[in-house]
């Protein structure tokens, strides 16, 4: 087990490093930061001056090495655009995105778990078909389109919910639905598949044959086992939701990480862009790492696979 954890940890680190290199190169090589910084109407000389001041005239590899060294020592640099410390900028946006990500996750689980169980229990029935249909339609509706529809109905027509901002819980209702709805189908499929598998397993059949009440069988035995892969997926989906919040945060003007990422892309704010991509990757890597270790712990077969 220790060997497994150590190997996994090393892999996670290697992946994080690889991602940081790729992101750094990708962003640095595809545009001129100095022009972006110098602004509207700047002359060539001004642009060159900016290039020198920010050290953008050195080789990319040197810039990367320097950046990595600073990150290791806790200095994430200064935003080219906002001129503030990147770490505190990103940290100040994190709560909004975390709230959005977690509430979307909870929302999608609240839809997916009951539907998945029902679909599995009444396999091939009308309910199963409807649940599957909902999942398929959920994946077909572009989330930005869905978000705009929500605004039209709940803000403009009914005036129940505020359009944008992050002041109260009401501000999070529509973004949560728009983001979470899209994540629900994956959970639903997994729960349904897991439940079907578990329900046909011997020990459940035995439990049923012993005459245990159906509800007890479902919740105590079946769901408990079917939920294992869901835990892994939950960790991972949270990572995806955080990454996918760009569009939703832009529409609802939620001042979170996704919108910060969009702004920094538009403004060629490389230090911020770097840290956001790295952070989301690290979150993903960390969550999968935890999920893997949890799974290996629950299911010893994985460790030796």
């Amino acid at each position, binding site marked *: 087990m220790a060997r497994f954890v150590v190997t996994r940890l090393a892999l996670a680190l*290697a992946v994080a490093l690889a991602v940081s290199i790729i992101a750094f190169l990708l962003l640095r090589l595809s545009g001129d930061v100095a022009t972006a910084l110098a602004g509207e109407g700047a002359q060539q000389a001004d642009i060159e001056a900016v290039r020198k001041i920010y050290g953008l005239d050195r080789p990319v590899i040197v810039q990367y090495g320097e950046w990595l060294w600073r990150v290791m020592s806790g200095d994430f640099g200064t935003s080219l655009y906002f001129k503030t410390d990147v770490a505190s900028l990103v940290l100040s946006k994190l709560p909004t995105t975390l709230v959005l990500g977690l509430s979307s996750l909870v929302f999608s689980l609240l839809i997916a778990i009951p539907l998945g169980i029902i679909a599995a229990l009444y*396999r091939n029935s009308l309910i199963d078909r409807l649940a599957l249909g909902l999942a398929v339609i959920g994946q077909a509706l572009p989330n930005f*389109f869905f978000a705009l529809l929500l605004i039209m109905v709940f803000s403009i027509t009914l005036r129940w919910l505020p359009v944008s901002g992050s002041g109260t819980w009401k501000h999070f209702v529509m973004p949560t639905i728009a983001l979470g709805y899209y994540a629900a189908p994956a959970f639903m499929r997994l729960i349904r598949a897991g439940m079907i598998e578990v329900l046909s397993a011997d020990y459940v059949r035995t439990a049923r044959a012993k005459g245990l009440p159906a509800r007890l069988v479902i919740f105590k035995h079946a769901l408990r086992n079917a939920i294992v892969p869901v835990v*892994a997926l939950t960790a991972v989906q949270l990572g995806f939701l955080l*990454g996918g919040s760009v569009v939703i945060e832009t529409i609802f003007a939620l001042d979170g990480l996704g919108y910060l990422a969009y702004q920094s892309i538009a403004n060629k704010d490389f230090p911020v862009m770097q840290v956001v991509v790295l952070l989301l990757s690290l979150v993903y890597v960390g969550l999968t790492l935890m999920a893997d270790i949890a799974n290996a712990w629950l299911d010893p077969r994985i460790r030796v696979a």
Partner: protein
Amino acid sequence: MPGLIRASVWHEMTIAAAPSPSAAEDSAATGFAHRAVREPALMIGLALIGVFVTLAVFAQVLATHDPYAQDLTRRTIPPLWYAKGNWDHLLGTDPLGRDYLARLLFGARISLLIGFCVAALAGVIGTVMGLAAGYFGGKVDIAVSFLVTTRLAMPVILVALAVVALIGSSLVVVILVLGLLKWDRFAVVIRSATQQVRSLDYVTAAEAIGASRWRILFGEILPNVAPHLIVVATLEMASAILLEAALSFLGLGVQPPLPSWGLMISEAKAYMFFSFWLIALPGGALAVLILAINLVGDGLRDVLAPDGRG
């Protein structure tokens, strides 16, 4: 050791995207067709896609107007069923006075083209990686698994946005960027399918008679993992079309005057509060197309893996 590198999320990718490996063996052509007909969702999906493809192919014939011809004096005419609609423009005109029906028809071409090309490009990359990893195992597998894990750790939409924003967007750039980002699921699924097929009799037999590695990979293994490939390809096609729409929505997808549906939604969103049909038509078309592709993907998976449905 190769197993160590595989994250548990791959399990979900495999479940959601591909038939269970055992199904690949017994999906003889007749059985397949037989089961396919009994899947109403699959048939509906295929029929819808057929309609879309027909519309796209015959767009030139079906459109009564040039999709690019603008007329600033005939802007934002509503569709026929509105009081101000007229017969000349069945689905009205856009804010530059271009015929909306013609743009929707030609837009179908762009969306299908993007979906197909991205799935093809990603499919080639992912399949080659998956085949190599699954067949050779060992260091190749570790290398491929590392690449997949790295790729999965990068948030697709952010990376795509950043690259497109920086190098400037066009149809080709969007296809390339998405194609180079979306190969992960192909690699994971084909890798595990290849691992299953590798030990089967005919592969070991081919190895025994000294067939070349390439022959074995592409002649023996590839045809056997093809059903998985098709299922993943449909899902990735739908996902690529949606991603392009999202990029276009943020103003960084296909560029005008190309009539992509994502772009049409993006351009119409400013009008949604007062001329809802402008956004509803391409939005609806997009949703139905994605629905159709997903129905086909799901249907194929079920047909190829009957036990998956229980």
